């Protein structure tokens, strides 16, 4: 295939240290996304494996859970991803203000997501011990919530680093890496939401 042997006179200038997508951190976070995505595949598989064995009576009160809180919460999380994307663009444009504002708004929206999720939990009339559905519901949404909280910690740290002026258009890998993780958390929520709140309509 390649016979690229280095010729000193033609050796180009190479970037030193991580630059956005060329550093190893970019590849590392995708490996993390790969393995964590697999985790959620298995969590959701556990739900469907059980669901197909029963009829709608398996669900609490025999019907799909209300989307009254979950649907707005989904929108909040999507907006939070948008804010993070905005912040990532900010650092690549060299605007520390946009960088910090974007990450800051993403954190606030993410925190609202967590609060609403906990509110929804407190309003449920079943617990993880109530039966298999209860165990699955709290474990799956709980795993997702844990990933959101971990993501908020990551965003907070990256926010601090941004505010300290560590980043510029060339040196911005942590912002991009954090945003990959945050978008992943958002995409996972879409699947979790679809499973608990939408799939019952398709199944029964």
């Amino acid at each position, binding site marked *: 295939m390649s016979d690229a042997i280095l010729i000193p006179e033609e050796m180009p200038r190479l970037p030193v240290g991580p630059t956005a997508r060329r550093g190893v951190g970019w590849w590392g976070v995708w490996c993390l996304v790969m393995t964590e995505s697999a985790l959620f595949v298995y969590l959701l598989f556990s739900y469907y494996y059980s669901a197909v064995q029963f009829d709608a009576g398996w669900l609490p009160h025999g019907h799909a859970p209300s989307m009254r809180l979950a649907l707005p919460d989904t929108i909040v999380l999507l907006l939070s991803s948008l804010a993070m994307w905005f912040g990532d663009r900010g650092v690549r444009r060299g605007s520390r203000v946009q960088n910090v504002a974007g990450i800051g708004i993403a954190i606030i929206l993410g925190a609202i997501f967590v609060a609403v999720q906990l509110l929804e939990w407190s309003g449920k009339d079943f617990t993880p011990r109530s039966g298999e559905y*209860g165990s699955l519901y709290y474990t799956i949404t709980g795993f997702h919530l844990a990933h959101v909280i971990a993501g908020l910690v990551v965003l907070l740290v990256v926010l601090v680093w941004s505010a300290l002026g560590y980043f*510029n258009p060339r040196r911005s890998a942590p912002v991009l890496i954090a945003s990959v993780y945050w978008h992943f958390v958002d995409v996972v929520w879409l699947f979790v939401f679809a499973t608990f709140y939408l799939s019952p309509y398709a199944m029964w």
Partner: protein
Amino acid sequence: MTATVTTTVTSTSDIERTPEIASADIVTGRGALERIWETAPGIIGFFSSVDHKEIGKRYIVTAFAFLIAGGIEAMVMRVQLARPNAHVLTPEQYNQLFSTHGITMIFLYALPVLSGFSNFLWPLMFGSRDMAFPRLNALSYWVFIAAGLFIYAGFAIGAGPNDGWFNYVPLASLPYNPGMNMDFYALGMIFLGVSTSVGAANFVVTVMRTRAPGMSIDRLPIMAWGTLTASVANLLVVPAVSLAFFMLWLDRQFNTHFFDVANNGQPLLWQHLFWFFGHPWVYAIVLPAMAMVSEGLPTFCRRPLVGFNLVALSTVATMLLGFGVWVHHMFATGLPNLPLAVFSGASIIITIPSAVAVFAWVATIWLGRPVITTAFLFFASMIGLFVIGGVSGFMTASVPVDWQLTDTYFIVAHIHYVLIGINVFPVCGGIYYWFPKMTGRMMNERLGRWNFWVMFIGFNLCFLPMHWTGLRGMPRRVYTYADGMGWDTLNLITSIGGFVFAAGVFLLVINVLHSLRHGRIAGANPWGAATLEWSVPSPPPPYNFAVIPQVASRNPLWEDHLPPDGPARSVIREGLVLDHGKETIGTTPLDAVPNIILKMPADSLSPFILTIGMAAFFVGLLVHLWWLAAVGAFVMLVALLIWLWPERELAERAEIAP
């Protein structure tokens, strides 16, 4: 080329540069690389080292310590089973022994030893100075040994795992298993899963991004294919078993209902999650070892591997198909006929790619000019053991046959032929082959012959009769058996064979210890092998390569004897210097064109501290001391912050405008 000594301080304007190309002799003469890369001596150096060679050797030594522990467990079991109605062990003791034996061998020996070899070898084979994530590498080792000790702590206090290594529910659930045995195992496995996952990510990124210029994907050593395949698979399937164990722990400790039927729980869910992981796992613990055979046999046959491309492709194909056969561990659970047929068919088809390597090895020996060394004997003999193990597996892929033979000693024979034949024997060959590179000394050949033959004879004496024992109906996992069943003599022979095999392993240990002190000094390439690790001194200097080699073929050191792969020739003694601190070259994934200078981290205590925090976290969960778990989590957070804080030395921070 400059004649002045290069400084090690990164200049603040070093955003880009044209990397220097120089000859290895001049660079070695400068002496800068040694200072830049060496680990500090003493206890701090020991706990903070991120040198892949150190970590690789630690993995191998620790995995061998677990191998010996697991072997002693087996020996005690064989004493109990040597004759009928023995009472050397109580049933509970026997249960803990066979479970811990399986867990030790499959989780604490089989993969870690292969990770150790890959860790030591990969940067040397790829012409690189370290793995992509050196601190993550250190973490994967510390977590491995911590998780192993966590699981063994249970065994040590008489609360070892006691439901087999695949501990099915409901027997593993609280009503039937009220002690802490399963909790040690469940939490320990989640803990260990962290090590496996980060190690796998490290291997994937290393092979994709840190190869020498010119080492395009078709020039990768075969060992890269074996471990890469296993690593991608591990990233995808380890979460399945971690989740299964987490659900089990929740059911046991918090009264959730994943697996108990009375509350809509699904017992078979455990088996699906476990085996969806478990089957790819058994390929993960043999494919890298097969790749080691594919590395070593060509050296001793003095010709390249026959069918290299097919072997690489069949490695990947075997693993891909390996995702689709897990239900063959569940044939006797009462599933409907359709899945039984599908998975039986898939389990039969998988023999095709997995056998490609066997034919390649035989052809390499046949068409080569073999030199019989101890390493060669281990590599060649495993072919026969592979075939026997493969045939017994193929037999049980057929559902009616499996219904007779599952949970009998026939399966025990099968698993030991594939695991010892395709993992342990190649590992022993790998030790004889790469010991000179790791230590600078040759192992003793005469003792090696004794080692090999005693192991080979003992192994077959122990496990070959088990096929008959199983066909005659002896169930597995029983602590004793009645006399007059036709099993007495077979069990006695097996027990004797086991002790002979153990003596063989003992000879290996003796040879290693003896050769460390008195082995003949080995040069860089005592075997006349083809790949890049043999171009550096034995043992390699801390920086591996004085200059990064430039690769033009798959067998860089054999280019004088083989037809050329293209217009260029590999250049070993001249290349990129990269001595502005700890650096190595980053290249594109397919064609290995240099596109970034990677700054490598210094030795650091944060992986070790992170592991301590993680251990405290899991101990806290185990004994329900929630404050301890919280403290552990906090320590982990602090260690991560220290680890990831952007450093100027690593060019992770924006340069301050002058």
